[in-house]
C-alpha cells in the first residue's frame, strides 16, 4: 500500500473545518473505488486552538494556533501534502484581533507551508472581495480588482489575504494555491451573513433597489473544497450555484417579506449604530452596499477549467432553506435528538470494539503464555 496522503485542515472547531474534515474522512473510508482520482488513503489532521465541539470520528486532532512558529516543524514531521485553510473568524466590525488571526495567521501559515514544502493549499474566500459598486460589470471575472467594502472585518481581511496570495503565488510557483470565492452561502445548518439575514424576523431591503444575487448551498461549498483538495487546480475560481436572481425573488423564495427602507435613512441608521458600537453585524448582517449594487461573479472559469458543477441550483437551495425554516417551528429538537442518538450509537460501538480488542488481546496473551510455557 502506498504511503498515506496527509491533509491538514485548519479551523477544525469551526463549522467549515468540521464539515470538510468529516467529508474527507468519509472519502478516505470509501477508498479509491470511484472516479474521484487519487482518493482513498488519506490521513486527516485537524488543527485549531480548541477541540471541535462535536467529536469527529477518525480525525487526528492537534491543538495548536496557526500563528505558532513551530507549525513548520509540525508540517515537516507529519509530511503534510495538502493544507485546507478554513480557520477564519468573523467578529463583524474590523478589529485588530480578527486581523491578527485571519491575515497574519494566513501569512504565517503560507510561509510555513512554503518552508516545509507543502504541495497544495486550498483557501475558502468570498465573492464579497470584489465589492458591490455601481460601476461593477454584470459579471465579475476572477481578474477584476478587489474593492471589497472595508467596513466589515471579514471582507476587509479577505481582501488583504487575497492580495497577499497574489504575490505569494508568484514567489512560490511550484506550490498549488487554490482559492475558491463563494457568494452568499445558504443552507439549513450553516451560520452565514445571508442565513442570519433571512432568519431575522424583519429583513430590511433598500427601497427601489433590487440587485441581482448569487447563492450556493452549504453542501456544495464543502464539496467544492473537497474537490479542490482531491484535484489539482491552481488559481482563483468563483464558485456559485446555477441561477442569478434579484434580491426580492431570493427573499420570496426563502419565504421572507422584504421591508423596504429608504436608502439614505438606512445608511444613516447604520452609521449611528456603528458609532455607538451597537452594530456588530447583528442588525443587518450584510453591508448595505451589497443590498444596493450588483456583485455577481462570472462562472466561466468554474465551468471550463475547474469542471466542478454545484449540485443545487439557486432555486433549489432557497426552497430547501425555506422548508427547513418552516419545519423549525414544529420540530426544533429533531437535530439534537438525531445527533444524540448517533453519538450514543457510536459510543456503544466503540465500547464494544474496545471490549473485543481487550478480549482478543487477553486471549493472545494467554496463548503466548501457553507458548512460552510449552517452550
Amino acid at each position, binding site marked *: 500500500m502506498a504511503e498515506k496522503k496527509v491533509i491538514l485542515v485548519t479551523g477544525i472547531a469551526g463549522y467549515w473545518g468540521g464539515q470538510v474534515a468529516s467529508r474527507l474522512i468519509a472519502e478516505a473510508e470509501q477508498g479509491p473505488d470511484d472516479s474521484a482520482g487519487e482518493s482513498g488513503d488519506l490521513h486527516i489532521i485537524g488543527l485549531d486552538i480548541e477541540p471541535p465541539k462535536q467529536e469527529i470520528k477518525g480525525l487526528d486532532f492537534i491543538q495548536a494556533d496557526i500563528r505558532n512558529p513551530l507549525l513548520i516543524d509540525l508540517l515537516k514531521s507529519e509530511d503534510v501534502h495538502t493544507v485546507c485553510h478554513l480557520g477564519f473568524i468573523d467578529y463583524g466590525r474590523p478589529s485588530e484581533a480578527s486581523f491578527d488571526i485571519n491575515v497574519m495567521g494566513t501569512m504565517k501559515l503560507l510561509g510555513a507551508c512554503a518552508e516545509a514544502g507543502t504541495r497544495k493549499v486550498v483557501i475558502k474566500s468570498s465573492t464579497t472581495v470584489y465589492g458591490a459598486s455601481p*460601476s461593477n460589470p*454584470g*459579471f465579475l471575472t476572477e481578474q477584476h480588482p478587489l474593492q471589497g467594502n472595508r467596513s466589515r472585518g471579514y471582507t476587509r481581511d479577505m481582501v488583504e489575504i487575497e492580495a497577499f496570495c497574489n504575490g505569494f503565488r508568484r514567489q512560490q510557483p511550484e506550490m498549488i494555491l487554490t482559492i475558491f470565492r463563494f457568494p452568499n452561502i445558504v443552507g439549513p445548518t450553516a451560520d452565514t451573513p445571508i442565513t442570519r439575514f433571512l432568519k431575522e424576523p424583519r429583513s430590511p431591503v433598500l427601497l*427601489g*433597489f*433590487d440587485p441581482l444575487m448569487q447563492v450556493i448551498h452549504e453542501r456544495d461549498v464543502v464539496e467544492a473544497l473537497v474537490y479542490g483538495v482531491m484535484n489539482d487546480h491552481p488559481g482563483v475560481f468563483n464558485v456559485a450555484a446555477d441561477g442569478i436572481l434579484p434580491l426580492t*425573488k431570493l427573499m*420570496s423564495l426563502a419565504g421572507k417579506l422584504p421591508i423596504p427602507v429608504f436608502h439614505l435613512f438606512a445608511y444613516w441608521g447604520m452609521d449611528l449604530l456603528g458609532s455607538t458600537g451597537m452594530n456588530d453585524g447583528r442588525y443587518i448582517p450584510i453591508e448595505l452596499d451589497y443590498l444596493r*449594487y450588483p456583485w455577481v461573479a462570472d462562472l466561466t472559469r468554474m465551468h471550463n477549467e475547474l469542471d466542478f458543477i454545484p449540485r443545487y441550483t439557486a432555486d433549489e437551495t*432557497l426552497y430547501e432553506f425555506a422548508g427547513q425554516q418552516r419545519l423549525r417551528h414544529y420540530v426544533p429538537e429533531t437535530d439534537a435528538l438525531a445527533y444524540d442518538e448517533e453519538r450514543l450509537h457510536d459510543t456503544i460501538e466503540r465500547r464494544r470494539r474496545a471490549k473485543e480488542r481487550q478480549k482478543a488481546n487477553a486471549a493472545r496473551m494467554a496463548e503466548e503464555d501457553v507458548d512460552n510455557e510449552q517452550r
Partner: protein
Amino acid sequence: MSSDEMIEAGFDGMPGEVTEMGEEPEVTDEELRRQLADQLDQIVERVKASTPEYTPPAFSAHRLLSLIEQNLKRFSPEMSLAILERLRSTIGEDLFDVDTWKGIWYMVNYSLEYQGDMLKRRLTGEYETDEWGYDPEFMEAVKPFFDFMYKTYWRVETSGIENIPDEGRALLVSNHSGQLPWDGTMLGLAVYNEHPNQRLVRSLYATWFPTLPFVSAFLTRMGQALATDENGIRLLESDELVAVFPEGYKGVGKLYKERYRLARFGRGGFVRMALTTQAPIIPVSVVGAEETYISLAKADAVAKLIGFPYFPISLTFPWLGPLGFIPLPTKWYIDFGEPIPVDSYHEGAANNMMLVSQLADQVRNVVQEMIFKRLADRKSVFFG
C-alpha cells in the same frame, strides 16, 4: 336576497324563452344579442388558444351566483346595490342565452384566476428572470404607460426598421438628448413595437443610474445593463441587440442652444465592442427628444452638492417641483440607418486606437447627417 331570487328566476326561465323570443318582431335586439355572443365567443377562443391548460370549474347556475356574491363583497354597499340593480334590469329583459352565460363564466373565472395567480407567484418568487435580471412579466405590466407616451404623447414615427437584423448581434448607436433617458426607453419600445421579431433592446446605461432608487431596479428588470466593455461584449456575444449612447452625460445634459449638435463620442468604447464581436453598427437618430425639456443653464454647484452628473435649470425645473419632470409633447422621429459592417477588419483591430477613433468619428458623422436630414424635413417641433 330578493335580488338573488330574481337572478335565479330569470336564469331558470331563460333557455325556453330565447327560442320563443326569436319569433317576435324585435329582430334588431336579437341580432345585437347574437353579435354580443359571437364576440364573447371569439374572446373566449382567443384566451383558450393562448392558455390551453386553463379549465374553469364546471358551469352551473349555483356556482355563478356564489361567484357573483363573493365578488360583490369587495365593493362598497352602494356600488354593489348599483351593480345588482343593473344586473336585475339586464336579466329582466332576458338578454342572453345559456352559451353567453357560459362565456361570461369562463372569462370571469379566468381573469380572477389569472390575477390571483399572478399576485401569488410574485409573492412566492415563482417568476423567471434572465441572467441580466430581465423580467418579462414586469415589462408587460409597465408597457401600457410607455406605449401611451410612444403612441399618443410623442407620436413616435420610425423609419428603416428593416435595417435591424431579424436575429443575431447588432450594435445600435444613437444620439442622446433630453435630460432624462426617455430617448433610450422610446428607442427600445420602437424596436419592440415595430420590428417583426419584437426584439428586446439591451441599452447600456451610465454609472449614475444604478445609484438612484427605483431607476436602478427598473433598469435591471427591463434587462438593461451598465455601460462597460465587459457587459457590451458579453451581450453581443450572446447575439443580443445592444444600444449605446456614446455621448453620455455630455449628450443627455445638453443645453437647449446646443441642441442636435453631437458631443464627443466617448472614448470609442462602442467601436471596440463592435470590433471584438464583429457586430454590425447601426446608426440611429432620435429627433424630438431635445425639445422635451428646455434646459437653459446648468447648475454645476448644485450638481456637485447632491452628487449628480448635471443639474439642469429649465423653463419648468426646478421651479415647479415634480411638475417640472413632465416632458413637452413634441413630435418624435426615430430613424435607423444602414448597418456599417465591421467584419472586414482583422482580429486585433480593437486594439488599434487610430482605427477605433476613426470609426467612432465616422459613425458620429453618419448620425449627425441623419439628424440634419430629419431636421431639414421637419416643419414644426410639435406637429412634425
